[in-house]
């Protein structure tokens, strides 16, 4: 086995997401160059993980910009929901009026039929 055969797997082996095969492990145990590469990958990973706790301070003004945008988005949403609510109320009223009209027509028709039968 050559270093090239192992090289592609060293990065994944360094973070433990992949285990080296038996032959690869045996090669790395004997190969100083591959061991050095593995150590280098581990150093890079450790440095990357340490960056997780770093917080870079933004220039002033970002927070107020974000809050202003959310405010605007909230207002747009409120207006949309108001329009939606009015539309729903209008459609509901229309449906109720239609139902009442239909019920009236049925009552009227049945009375007319009764009168015709009585005469």
């Amino acid at each position: 086995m050559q270093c090239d055969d192992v090289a592609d797997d060293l990065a994944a082996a360094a973070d433990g997401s992949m285990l080296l095969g038996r032959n690869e492990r045996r090669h790395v145990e004997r190969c100083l160059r591959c061991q050095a590469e593995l150590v280098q990958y581990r150093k890079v990973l450790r440095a990357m993980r340490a960056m997780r706790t770093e917080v870079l301070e933004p220039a002033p003004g970002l927070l107020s910009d974000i809050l202003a945008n959310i405010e605007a988005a909230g207002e747009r949403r409120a207006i949309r929901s108001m329009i939606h609510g009015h539309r729903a109320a209008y459609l509901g009223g229309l449906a109720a009026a239609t139902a009442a009209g239909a019920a009236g027509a049925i009552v009227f028709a049945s009375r007319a039929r009764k009168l015709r039968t009585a005469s």
Partner: protein
Amino acid sequence: MPQDVAHLVTAARDGDREAFDELVRVTYAESFTLALRLTGNEEDARDVVQEAYIRAFRGLSRFRGDAQFSTWMYRITANCANTHLVKRNKHRHEVLDDVEPVADDRPANDPQLQTDATALRHQLTVALETLPPKLRQVVVLRDIYDLSHEAIAAELGISETAAKVRLHRARKKLREDLFPRRAQEAADAV
């Protein structure tokens, strides 16, 4: 999730606007840090963070609370950064892939900086900035923010296989940038 953040999330989901504003105050610097690492410049990072919080505000009812709020924000920020970078690069007619820095100003070539962990971190910051954006996004989200391959693939709109390939290429490039002499020796010896 820290208790106070959990309370704020619950209150914000119930429609408490002040609670959402407080959530922004508590988390925006962290989201900005991620956006800056993904985009590589402050102006883009500011745009990305603003867009990310508007999306979070609109989609808070969909946040199930089984992940940390910060992780949820990372995913939204990553998605916004990706959209932003794609738009920006379309506009500028730049190619995202395989962008090499013109000048070799890597601090790894400065012997004074090759001493301790702080220097390594500084070198890493510069090396990350010189990575092509497609590689940088994946390695930042995986190795700094610990997002799963699945989450990274979903937010960047790529397959998990593509995410893994990019991660491998990014790590290799970072190692070569940070340890150039030994990497070259290794290459010569093959």
